[in-house]
């Protein structure tokens, strides 16, 4: 629908204002990361661009100071990569089972997928905590990875996507003598590539930023992830704002770069299969 120049300008101005509001916290944290922690304690976080108090000191401390920031950072990086890779492969496999076959119990199992999506995970925190304790998985990344490895939302998304793939492809594979698993690995997986990009970003975001469950099962300081580590800088005995603000600022960068690099796939992928029936 065509719109007049006046309407265009009005829309543009309106969205620009909202955009500025959304960017203010990012601007505040960027400015804040150049100011000493004492300044923040005394005057609060604000938008004042005051060169007399701003310096690169926090960044110098981030890269050369003695602290565990980059241990947390590489732990998070490792955990995110392993978790996303495993979750995507397992969830896609399950989704293929649901999309390509008719089998006894299929509807019941799919209702279970939907149920997981609707019931708050948080109510399971304590029984999962005791289970983890009894399985001897405390302080291990498998306690973080395993419960979510067949991720309901990801299965749901992949299944929606696979519904669009013609069944003839599978039939043709059988005629050519491929096994059921060969069809999945050699014919279907390559076709699923675009949906993998969208899910990689979404799962990567969740994994990189995940705090509640990891915070409960990881108590070994050497295994802290970035969100847990940043949280430890906030203590009842005073907060380490020097490292906290610059560390927070720096922690946004990897996921922001990932998003900007793949945003086209992401927005298209999200809108391709997200909410249909």
């Amino acid at each position, binding site marked *: 629908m065509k719109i007049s120049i006046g309407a*265009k300008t009005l*829309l*543009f101005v*309106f*969205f620009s204002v*909202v*955009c500025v509001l*959304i*960017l203010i*916290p990012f601007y*505040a944290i960027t400015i804040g990361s150049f100011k000493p922690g004492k300044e923040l304690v005394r*005057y*609060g*976080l*604000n*938008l004042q661009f005051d060169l007399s108090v701003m310096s690169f000191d926090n960044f110098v401390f981030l890269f050369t100071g003695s602290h565990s920031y980059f241990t947390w950072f590489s732990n998070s990086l490792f955990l995110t990569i392993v978790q996303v890779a495993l979750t995507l492969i*397992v969830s896609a*496999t*399950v989704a*293929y089972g*649901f999309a*390509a*076959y008719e*089998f006894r119990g299929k509807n019941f*199992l799919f209702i*279970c997928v939907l149920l*997981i999506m609707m*019931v*708050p995970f*948080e*109510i*399971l*925190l*304590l*029984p999962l905590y*005791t*289970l983890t304790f009894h399985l001897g998985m405390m302080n291990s990344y498998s306690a973080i990875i395993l*419960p979510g*490895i*067949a991720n309901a939302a990801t299965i749901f998304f992949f299944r929606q996507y696979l519904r669009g793939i013609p069944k003839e492809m599978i039939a043709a594979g059988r005629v050519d003598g491929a*096994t*059921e*698993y060969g069809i999945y690995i050699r014919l279907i997986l390559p076709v699923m590539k675009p949906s993998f990009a969208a899910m990689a970003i979404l799962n990567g*975001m969740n994994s990189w*930023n995940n*705090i509640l469950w990891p915070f409960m099962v990881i108590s070994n300081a050497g295994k802290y992830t*970035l*969100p847990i580590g*940043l949280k430890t800088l*906030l203590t009842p005995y005073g*907060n380490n704002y020097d490292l906290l603000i610059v560390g*927070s600022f720096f*922690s*946004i960068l990897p996921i*922001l770069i990932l998003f*900007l690099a793949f945003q086209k796939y992401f927005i298209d992928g999200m*809108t391709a299969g997200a*909410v*249909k*029936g």
Partner: protein
Amino acid sequence: MIKNFLYSQKVAPYIFVLPFIAVFAIFWAYPLASSVGMSFQHTMLGQPSEWIGSDNYSKLMSDGVFLKAVSNSVVYMVLTLVILIPFPMLFAVLINNKFMWGREFFKSTFFFPALTSIVVAGTVFRLMFGEMEGSLINSFLGLFGVEPIKFLKGQVTGFVALLALASWRWIGVNMLYFLSGLKSIPEEYYEAASIDGASSFQKFTRITMPLLKPTTIYVITISIYAGLAMFIESMMLWNGNNSPKNIGLTIVGYLYRQGIEKNDLGYAAAVGIVLLLIAMAINITQLILTGMFKKED
């Protein structure tokens, strides 16, 4: 023999969905069942537990702090629905116009906040809503001669900060969901309506809103879930699970306090089961009201 069996078309689907069955049984069904069981026991980690019937539940009903937590969570959920459904929908409709300037840029920028960790976002908002004169929000209000407000010490102002944080993080995500819904509405509907002389407002209420319904139901469902289960937002904003007079305490916060901080697992399990019942009741009512269970026309 075994190989033929595993490779048959009858068995293969079960092999494909096996990981889900295993995860569902071990990390979902079993914990849920044990949570129900635990809620009828007095149980502490590493100690023998004893059955106490429904004592935990009757104690909950007269526990003022718990009722405060329930009311906080429900109010928070309702307010996030009021903000995070209509505005993202309106934004999506406006931004969906192909002739708008900078729409790709706006779409990405609106999504940025969702990329930040709640630890980072919560800390930034706590500092922005700080009580000092120089904190961002107070220094802005100061321009209009408003005295500095102690945001995080009052019930209403504390919720303003919480809702600002929630709106900031989720407006772009919900907008993307609505944009995906809009994509599936054929352009011809609007052209036909234009020929019939319909106004923009009529097109919105008669075409866009009804056809966006599946998306709206989906977004409402996940927002109810997220609203009722909110915890870390409050924990970061108040720098711990303790807010003055429990103004920021949520149901999950109370579950965490009882279960992890006080090690009273049975009582905390009962809190979890009540949350489950509230979430199911609200969601099922919502789905009935919005006609999800009605037969397709």
